[in-house]
C-alpha cells in the first residue's frame, strides 16, 4: 500500500520534472532542430517541428565558410589554459586563506571578488593600448592571461570554500608526521580537495568558454575563439536562422557535451560554501 503511494507520487514527480526540464531545454532543442532545416523551412508558417526534410547543408556551408576547427582549438586553448593557470595560482592562495586565516583574509577575498565588477567596456581602450605595447593583441597567450585574471577571483573563492571544509586536524596529524608545507599541500590536501578542484575547473572552463567581450575585441585572425565564429553568423544580409542555428550548435556543442558528462562532478562541487 505504502509502496503504491510512493510510486504514484514518484510518477507525479517524474511527470512534472520532465515537463519543466523539457520546457527549459526547449530553446536549445529548437535551435538544434532548426540547424537541420532549410532557410525557408526555418521561418515557415506554421513552424515545423520534426517532419521536415532533414539536411546537413547548413553545417556544410558554415564549415566551408569558416574553419570551425581553428576556432575550436583556440577556444580550447584559451579556456583551458586560463583555467589551469588560474587554478595553479589560486590553490596556494586559497590554501593559505583557509588554513592560516588572518584578520584581513576575508577582506582580501571580498576585494578579489569586487575586482570582477569593473565594467569591461570602460577599460577597453586602456587595455587595448596596453596590449599594443606588450605585443599581446591577437595572441592566445594574451587571451589566456586576460581570462585567467577575469576568473581568478571566482577560482580563489571556490577553492577557499572547499579547503575550509577540510578538517584542520588531518593537517595537524600530517604535520606531526613530519610533512612539510609542500608535501602537506601535495599529498594531503589536494587529494581531499580533488572533487572541489575538479568542479572549480569545470565551472571556470565554462565561464571562459562563453566570455564574449574580450575574446571578440582583442583578437583578429590568429587567436579568435568560437565567440568570434558566432559573430560572423549573426544578422548577415538575407535569411540566416538555419545557418545561425547550425553555427550556434557547433559553438555550444563541445561545452554542452563536456557539461553533460561531468554534470555529477559539477553538481557535487558547486557549493561555494553554501553547505555546512
Amino acid at each position, binding site marked *: 500500500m505504502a509502496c503504491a503511494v510512493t510510486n504514484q507520487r514518484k510518477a507525479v514527480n517524474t511527470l512534472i520534472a520532465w515537463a519543466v526540464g523539457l520546457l527549459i531545454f526547449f530553446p536549445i532543442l529548437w535551435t538544434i532542430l532548426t540547424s537541420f532545416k532549410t*532557410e525557408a523551412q526555418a521561418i515557415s508558417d506554421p513552424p515545423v517541428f520534426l517532419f521536415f526534410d532533414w539536411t546537413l547543408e547548413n553545417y556544410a556551408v558554415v564549415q566551408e565558410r569558416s574553419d570551425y576547427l581553428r576556432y575550436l582549438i583556440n577556444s580550447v586553448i584559451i579556456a583551458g589554459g586560463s583555467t589551469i593557470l588560474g587554478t595553479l595560482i589560486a590553490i596556494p592562495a586559497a590554501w593559505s586563506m583557509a588554513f592560516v586565516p588572518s584578520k584581513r583574509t576575508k577582506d582580501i577575498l571580498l576585494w578579489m571578488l569586487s575586482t570582477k565588477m569593473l565594467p569591461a567596456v570602460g577599460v577597453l*581602450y586602456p587595455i*587595448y593600448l596596453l596590449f599594443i605595447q606588450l605585443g599581446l593583441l591577437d595572441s592566445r597567450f594574451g587571451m589566456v592571461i586576460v581570462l585567467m585574471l577575469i576568473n581568478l577571483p571566482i577560482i580563489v573563492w571556490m577553492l577557499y570554500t572547499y579547503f575550509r571544509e577540510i578538517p584542520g586536524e588531518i593537517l595537524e596529524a600530517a604535520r606531526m608526521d613530519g610533512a612539510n608545507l609542500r608535501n602537506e599541500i601535495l599529498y594531503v590536501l589536494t587529494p581531499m580537495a580533488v572533487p572541489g578542484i575538479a568542479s572549480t575547473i569545470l565551472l571556470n572552463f565554462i565561464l571562459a568558454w562563453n566570455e564574449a567581450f574580450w575574446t571578440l575585441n582583442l583578437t*583578429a585572425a590568429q587567436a579568435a575563439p568560437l565567440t568570434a565564429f558566432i559573430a560572423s553568423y549573426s*544578422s548577415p544580409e*538575407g*535569411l540566416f536562422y538555419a545557418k545561425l542555428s547550425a553555427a550556434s550548435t557547433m559553438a555550444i556543442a563541445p561545452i554542452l557535451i563536456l557539461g553533460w558528462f561531468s554534470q555529477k562532478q559539477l553538481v557535487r562541487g558547486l557549493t561555494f560554501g553554501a553547505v555546512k
Partner: protein
Amino acid sequence: MKLTPILIGACSAMAISFAAQAQTLTIATVNNGDMIRMQGYTDQFTAETGIAVEWVTLEENVLRQRVTTDISTNGGQFDIMTIGMYETPIWGANGWLVPLDDLSEEYDAADILPAMAGGLSHDGTLYAAPFYGESSMIMYRTDLMEQAGLEMPDAPTWDFIKQAAAAMTDRDADINGICLRGKAGWGEGGAFITAMSNSFGARWFDENWRPQFDTEEWANTLNFFVEMMTESGPPGYATNGFNENLSLFQQGKCGMWIDATVAASFVTNPADSTVADSVGFALAPDNGLGKRANWLWAWALAIPAGTDDVDGAKQFIEWATSKDYIEMVAENEGWANVPPGARISLYENPDYQAVPFAEMTLESILTADPNNPTVDPVPYVGVQFAAIPEFAGIATQVSQEFSAVYAGQQSVEEALAKAQAIATEEMEAAGYM
C-alpha cells in the same frame, strides 16, 4: 656532402615560410553575401600573386567597433579594413588611411561611379575602393499592385505610396502594404528616416551646425511615417531592420518595401523568395521638393596607414574591386550575383543591363548626391548620415528616441524635443556651437 642539400633545403624552406609569413594579409570584413562570395575566391588571388589572405568576418556592428578601436589606437591588426562611406572621409582626414591615388592603369580608377568615388574621398583623394555600392529604392509586388487597381509610376510621390500601401493592406491575409525600417541604430532605422527626411525638406544641421529637430519639416517626416506605418505597416515594425523586412517581403507579407538596392537580388532569387517572379522596382518617393528619399552607401576596402604590407594590400584591393573580378563572378554565378553599384562599365555591359533591377539601381545611385543631400544647404557630406565623428553617437541615440515613438511609448513631439536636446548637447560638447 650529404648534409649540404639538406641544409640548403632547410634554409630555402625557412626562407619560403618566412616569405609566406611576410605576405599574409589580414582582412577585416562584414558578413554580407558579396563579401562571403569574395572569400570563396581568395584561393584564386593567392594562386595569382602568392599572397595568402586571412579573413576576419564579423557582423556589421561588431566589425565597426573592432576596426575603429584598432585604427584609432594604431593597433595594426589588419592590413585591409572593410569600411563604409561614413568612416572613409573622417579617417582619411585623420591621416589614418593610405591614399589610393596611385592605382594601376589597367585598374581604371576613372571607371568608379563618381557618386561612389566622391563619397569615399577626402579633399579629392580616394581613400577606399568600393567593393559594392548601393542606393535605396522601392521594391513592390506587381500582383498586389494590380489587385489594388493601381499602377506604380517610375518615380512616385509619398502621397501615392501612402495611398497604395493602404489599398494593398489586408491584415486578415497577413499582408502589410508597406514594410520599412524602424529599428534603432544610425545604420538601420536612422538611415531610413534621415533619407526620408531629405525628401521632406528636413536636415540634420543648418549651416551653423545647429540641430534642426525643432523644425516643422522633421515633425512632418515623423508624423507621416508613423501614420503610414500604423495604417499599413507590419506589427512590431519598431524592431524591424533590413533583415526582418527582407524575410517579411520574401514570405509575401509586404506589398512594398523601400530599402537597399542590393536587396533586389535577394527578393528576385527564387531559391529564397516566394514572390521572386512578381517584384517590380521604382525610384524612392519624393514630395516634389527636388530631393528623393534614397540614400547612398558603399562598402569599400581601405588600407590602414600602419600596415607593413601596403603593396600587397593594394594588390588585393585592385584584384577584388576590378572589372576582372566582376567578370569572374558573372561567369561562375550569373550576372545577377556580381557586386553592384561600383563601376560605370558594369552598367554599360549589355549582359548586365538585362538584369531586371540593374537600371533602377543605377538611376537610384545617380540621383543621390552626398555633397548636396538636402533641400536647404547643409555643412556636411553624406545623404543618410553626416560625415562627422560625432554623428554615429548622436544618431544612434536619436534613432532610439524615434523607435520609442514607433513602439508607441512616446509622442512625435516628445521624441523630437529629446532628439534636439541630445544633438545640441553633443554638438556643444564637441565644440561646433
